[in-house]
């Protein structure tokens, strides 16, 4: 691969200015990002914002309308077939054959990648062991519970030992225990150098990723580690601070808090209120002023912004820019 740009060296995925148009509609508009080997890359965005389109472009299913994409050092434009040999893909509905047994599903996917019989047998044994599928090998896939289906689907996607796996909402609709087990497994595998491209709607999952990006209607509006994103000036404007107010009367407290000067925004989080306040407003002042309004305050403490805060702020900013452009 001599025509590979230097920037693509050593990265699992390099996307440069990806564009995809469907007629007049621009589904993906100049998206660039870089995923290093061994990262868990969380790709977030609302439904219909272009997540699946990007995956399809990176896996060679959709031709690019513009830009470049390199996956595992291969140009997706010219080597889609080779790219598909080297990646694994697990869709959100797990794409198993319900009327085939666990073993048959694994055998089928192994044969698709033309694994020689010996290696196929060894890989199936490894996957069955690693995922604890042992007791279920002769069970029909349709009879497995959600969590086991997901493990089997992941096993099928990993039979050919890909170095890069695309997981499209891998935890949609499975129980919390299975969800946690999956993430434990992802961490373990990523430590072995396997790269994961994960789409999800769960913010707590995004927090676990080593690298996240947020796509909003075709535009990438955030890209970085969770910690760098939290420190972005848009998220944490200079002279402001995020706090958490714990109180038994959240609804009344929210109404009052929004009337106070020095509070830029406030929102309810369970039994507490998350607020962005100006530095001029001290925490003691705030407590006093709330108590003056007969609101019992249990605790006020500084808070780091969550990724949800990050995406909310960046979305507001992006929308404001779009509207400014329109006028």
């Amino acid at each position: 691969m001599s025509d590979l740009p230097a920037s693509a060296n050593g990265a699992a995925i390099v996307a440069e200015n990806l564009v995809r148009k469907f007629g007049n509609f621009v589904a993906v508009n100049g998206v660039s990002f870089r995923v290093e080997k061994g990262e868990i890359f969380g790709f977030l965005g609302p439904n219909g914002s272009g997540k699946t389109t990007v995956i399809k472009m990176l896996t060679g299913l959709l031709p690019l309308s513009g830009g470049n994409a390199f996956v595992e050092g291969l140009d997706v434009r010219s080597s889609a077939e080779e790219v598909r040999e080297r990646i694994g893909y697990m869709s959100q509905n797990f794409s198993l054959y319900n009327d085939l047994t666990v073993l048959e599903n694994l055998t089928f996917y192994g044969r698709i990648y033309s694994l020689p019989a010996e290696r196929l047998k060894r890989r199936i044994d490894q996957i069955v062991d690693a995922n604890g599928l042992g007791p279920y090998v002769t069970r029909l896939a349709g009879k497995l519970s959600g969590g086991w289906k997901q493990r089997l689907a992941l096993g099928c996607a990993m039979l050919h030992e890909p170095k890069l796996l695309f997981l499209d909402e891998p935890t949609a609709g499975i129980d919390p225990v299975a969800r946690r087990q999956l993430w434990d497994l992802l961490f373990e595998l990523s430590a072995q150098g396997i790269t994961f491209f994960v789409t999800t709607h769960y913010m707590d999952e995004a927090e676990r990723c080593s690298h996240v990006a947020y796509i909003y209607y075709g535009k990438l509006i955030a890209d970085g580690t969770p910690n760098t994103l939290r420190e972005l000036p848009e998220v944490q404007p200079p002279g402001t601070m995020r706090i958490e107010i714990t109180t038994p009367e959240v609804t009344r407290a929210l109404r009052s808090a929004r009337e106070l000067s020095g509070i830029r925004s406030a929102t309810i989080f369970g039994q507490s209120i998350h607020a962005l306040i100006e530095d001029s407003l001290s925490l003691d002042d705030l407590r006093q002023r709330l108590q003056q309004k007969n609101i019992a305050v249990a605790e006020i403490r500084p808070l780091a912004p969550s990724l949800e805060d990050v995406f909310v702020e960046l979305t507001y900013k992006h929308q404001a820019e779009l509207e400014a452009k329109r006028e």
Partner: protein
Amino acid sequence: MNNIFRGVGAVFYKEALHVRRDAGTLFFSLTMPLLQMFLLGFAIDTNIRQINTVVYNADGHRESRELLDRFRNSDTFHVIKYVENDHDLNDLIIAGKARVGIKIPVDYSDRLLHQMGAQVLILIDGSDSSVAGQAINVSTAIGLDESLRRALQSSGTFAVEMRPKLLFNPDSRSPNFFLPGLTAIMLLNVTTFLTAFSIVREKERGTLEQLFVTPVRPFGLLLGKLLPYLFIGFFELCLILTAMRFIFLVPIHGNVFLLALLSLPYLFAALSLGILISSKASSQAEAMQLAFLPILPSVFFSGYIFPRETIPALLYPISYLIPATYYINITRGIILRGADITHLWKDGLALCIIGALLLTIAARRFHNKVIMA
């Protein structure tokens, strides 16, 4: 790496497992055609015999009774009732109880005795053209024969006598004619449905999307899906031929192995049609409706029921696009006429071309519509 059939073995393995798991569908799809075959084979008789006939014999003398005997002995007419007036004669035909009414006028035998021309009225229900046609032909022939007999009473022999000889199906047995054609329709039915369903099911499950992210190539996928059903179709053919030969006693004049060989391109074309249908349909219900589409043209434009010569010139070219046209020519050719490869290679070739064309279109559609969607 650049094998355009990549994945065909894996898909075949998987598809064979699906078929084995779903024994119910397999059993159903194998027995349904046989059931149809028994129904149609025993029930349909294209030879028109024993037409219900009502008679008003106003004359009643020996000559009139002799004439009626000739009608009865023809095997075409079956006298169900004798009536005594014109009204009843008409009424039975209107009621649909009789399709033919014979009225012998009161002076029939008198006129014959006086060497004058006598007339017999034959009322025919024209609502079924083939029955009416048969009634006209046979009654005219009886009249002609009767006249000649009377005219030639003295000399005794006819000057010219036609001696028709039916080749290949001397008894004009309907099963001999019907079943070879029915084979084509039944095979089409089974194979189109099975393949169309097997692919649409994967679309519904989302597994098709998964397959396209693997190195499987469209041709590998489609061929892998097609092959198991080719075997099923072939097995079905063996069942049909066995039933045809040993239950319906249709003699097979040609080489049965040649028939088997030439059935392969037909099955291939029918299966490719099923795949093409599945590329269009997004649900099993839709596939079901689309799979019915090719059935009617295959019944009516292939020569299965109506001879192709009766198709209007404008629509005639359509019959060349229908795989069943060629296959019916093959089955009837081998089974009834004892044709060999020198007579039928063109039909086999046409089927191969149609099949390859359909599969290519289907593969392209899959590439464009399914992957890119």
